[in-house]
């Protein structure tokens, strides 16, 4: 087989795989636009005959989505801020010092990443309840998410810091800066891309977080969109178009961010994001 033919075959395989993988997303978008009867038609239609745009406005109003999304934003921004502020310092230290304790620290950090949220929630819940944190449920969720996602952030950002040559910092020290000044003036600007990309990934994770929010936040008016979507679905639900509309409104902003920034995200993850 010639090279061009093989490339074509590979391309076809890639397209088929992508189509299978993205099909649920496509189904979500078109179901949201279908009418009640078209939704249950057999065979199903792959393109809505009369797009029902009004569904979006109806769902937004009736489910109070503005409030849910606001809560999701608060939780996501809170977690990202907390993780970034704490994680950058941690990652820097782990990148610059090499000894047994740093290795042990890294190992523990990776261990944290291994434990699933559904396992962690029980001890976290009991602990928070004893500390009285459940009275501030959104803050409690932010802290829980920060604890969960910090390892991921630290590992990514550490790699970024390691790609910043130490000589640059030394040059800044000799040039008259302090250790802290060199960090903020030289290292941080050079690691900015890597930190930004990691923060965006954390944001997207936190924006869709479900387990901690569902368990910790009881008050409906403080719940994020993920929990709102869950409460939309019951054992006898049949308003799939409304649920799909909800889901569309929820994920489209995240998808948009990802599509817009995907080039940066991919390059930020693979290279040290320098030069």
């Amino acid at each position, binding site marked *: 087989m010639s090279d061009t033919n093989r490339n074509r075959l590979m391309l076809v395989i890639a397209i088929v795989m992508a189509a299978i993988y993205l099909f649920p997303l496509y189904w979500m978008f078109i179901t949201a636009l279908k009418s009640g009867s078209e939704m249950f038609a057999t065979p199903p239609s792959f393109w809505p005959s009369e797009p029902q745009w009004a569904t979006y406005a109806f769902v937004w109003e009736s489910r109070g989505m503005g409030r849910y999304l606001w809560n999701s934003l608060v939780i996501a921004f809170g977690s990202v801020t907390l993780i970034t502020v704490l994680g950058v310092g941690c990652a820097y230290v782990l990148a610059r010092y090499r000894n047994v304790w740093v290795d042990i620290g890294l190992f523990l950090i990776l261990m944290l990443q291994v434990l699933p949220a559904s396992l962690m929630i029980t001890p976290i819940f009991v602990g928070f309840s004893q500390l009285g944190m459940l009275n501030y449920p959104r803050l409690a969720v932010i802290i829980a998410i920060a604890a969960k996602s910090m390892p991921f952030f630290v590992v990514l950002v550490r790699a970024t810091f390691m790609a910043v*040559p130490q*000589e640059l910092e030394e*040059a800044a020290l*000799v*040039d008259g800066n302090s250790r802290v000044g060199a960090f903020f003036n030289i290292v941080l600007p*050079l690691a900015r891309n890597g930190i930004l990309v990691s923060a965006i990934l954390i944001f997207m994770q936190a924006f869709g977080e479900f387990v901690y929010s569902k368990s910790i936040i009881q008050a409906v008016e403080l719940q994020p969109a993920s929990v709102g979507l869950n409460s939309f679905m019951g054992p006898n639900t049949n308003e799939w178009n409304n649920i799909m509309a909800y889901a569309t409104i929820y994920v489209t902003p995240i998808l948009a961010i990802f599509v817009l920034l995907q080039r940066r995200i991919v390059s930020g993850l693979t290279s040290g994001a320098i030069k």
Partner: protein
Amino acid sequence: MTKQIELSGVNKYYGAFHALKNIELSIEKGSFVALVGPSGCGKSTLLRSLAGLESISTGDLKIAGELMNNVPPRKRDIAMVFQSYALYPHMTVEQNLTYSLRIRGVPKAEAKKAAEEVAATTGLSQLLGRYPRELSGGQRQRVAMSRAIIRHPKAFLFDEPLSNLDAALRVHMRKEIRTLHDRLGATSVYVTHDQIEAMTMADHVVVMKDGVIEQQGAPLELYDRPANKFVAGFIGSPAMNFVPAVVGEDGRSLAVDVGERQTITLDRQLQPGRRVTAGLRPEHLHFVEPGQGVFRLPVGIVESTGSATYITTATATEVTIVETARRPVKTGDIIDVSIRPADVHVFDGETGLRV
């Protein structure tokens, strides 16, 4: 002459590893000092200790008369040029140059003016708005130099600054750095593993090995009177020939273990029967008429550079000879060579120290 940098009894340990051993070094104001030695000899550690990037374990380190042992780099008022240049990639050339001034709170206009002045002397005027990634190797090197000279520090430290340049540019920058040093009346410490750089640029050469200063002095002093076998082999290119020898009965000749006629006369009296190593520089071995020479040697390899011919003999202990006159020598020939008694270096057979 005032002492700009003084080190006395300086030791540096990394855990159990003894990186600098009892360093005694004083550097006069306005002098150009080269630290030279094979990799891992401690020359970079010594330079970094001067900069304050490493702390010394024991001993005293003074810069301009002030004790600097525990002073952080930013308060030492020294400038350093790194091997990788360490230019700040996110800053333009001008910002790179003025960084140290801006930290010290020099007004913007003044810093800009200083950058323009320095750039004019180093030929960077057209490049002030560029980023380091847009510059060639030689230009980056110049930026690194300019960044060092802009603030008139007490001393310049160079950490193998030319090793990333190609051969022609290196020779050129060698002169440029030395000219700049003279014009600024600066005090410079220059680390290199290249003995030619050290010999050509420095007023004072410090040869190091395994954390110890083996010898220090003026370049020609090191060449003419190396204190030991290591220095003798390190300074000079091609390297000195070392031949095992025994002092003759009269104490004024050496029985040398190579070639056919094996006796060289000495210009000094030594203890008869002593085992020594004779050091013969390749450029001091001269061709003579058959029968007139000290050595008769079979030719092994002949390499010609045009200006000089390098001849390596086919003897058990290889001897290299550099001949500047053109001679029709080829592999397998037998040649006669001689050496002036004053040019023969003698080292103790065991300690390697100069006799």
